């Protein structure tokens, strides 16, 4: 009898161990599932111009005879400074460029009179973000206001001025500028 037990027990213990293991595993089953996140962020540019009281016009009022009108400080626009908000999603190291271009070389006045755009200057203030240039006047018909890199939001205020001159014929002058934001 003793021999029988000695033969059965090892088998029984082995069987218990073998059967016990699955039971224990059954208590801690698990399951995995992997998934991929794919995100596509395209380049994007948005330019917002605000602060203009009269539509899209920047107006100058040089009425009056004060010699101050002909000082170096020039005549500020009647509007308060306009606001520029540049929102750009650029590639890593990509450029963010804001230019302002005139549609012609001169502001057109009465009877063929004109004022060159180079008489118009500006002051940038309240800048946030990198890349705002120190340009304050048109180089012929174009100027770069912002030359930055990488994504982000940038803001500035811009106050136009015009250098008055007694040589300008009286009358109303007008011209158009276009702002272009390029993001790469």
């Amino acid at each position: 009898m003793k021999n029988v037990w000695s033969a059965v027990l090892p088998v029984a213990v082995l069987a218990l161990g073998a059967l016990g293991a699955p039971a224990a595993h059954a208590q801690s089953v698990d399951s995995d599932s992997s998934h991929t996140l794919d995100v596509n962020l395209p380049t994007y540019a948005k330019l917002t111009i605000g602060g203009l009281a009269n539509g899209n016009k920047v107006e100058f009022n040089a009425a009056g005879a004060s010699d101050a009108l002909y000082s170096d400080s020039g005549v500020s626009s009647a509007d308060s400074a306009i606001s520029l908000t540049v929102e750009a999603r650029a590639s890593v190291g990509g450029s963010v460029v804001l230019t302002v271009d005139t549609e012609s070389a001169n502001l057109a006045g009465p009877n063929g009179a004109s004022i060159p755009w180079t008489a118009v200057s500006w002051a940038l203030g309240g800048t946030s973000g990198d890349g705002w240039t120190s340009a304050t006047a048109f180089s012929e018909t174009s100027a770069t206001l912002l030359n930055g890199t990488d994504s982000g939001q940038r803001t500035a205020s811009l106050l136009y001025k015009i250098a008055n001159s007694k040589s300008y014929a009286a009358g109303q002058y007008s011209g158009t500028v276009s702002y272009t934001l390029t993001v790469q």
Partner: protein
Amino acid sequence: MTRRAPRITGIGGLLFTLFALGTAPASAASLGISLAAPSLRFQASNPGVQPTVPALENPIAVSVNYSGTGNWVLNVLADGDLLSAGSSIPISRVRWTANGAAFSSGTLSKTSPQAVGTGNVSATGSLSFFLADSWNFAAGSYAQTITFTAVEF
């Protein structure tokens, strides 16, 4: 699960024990998870207009199939941040909302598993994933792997 062990009273008792234990696999728990989308795609545009970008696959059906007498928990863990060439987006910018009583909303993490659901029976629901976009993120194609793990406890 508790089980009363019969007394061993010789070979007969031992064989009974073996027989009783031998029935355990028939009632062994099984646990499986299924998420209807193998990949989650986010197509961003203007962050000012669409600051939150939904995954194109939303809502995504999720199911946990469980046959056991315990409880299960479903977690998700990201392998890292969203990566592109020379740029990254914190994985914590991705969150999900859940429908279904067993499932809960949360935010992805690359360091600790985040609970997606729990229960003691099979459950179905849906998950919707969202990316919090920003103008500060560089343009590009980003990718990362997330792994859902269901565990019985």
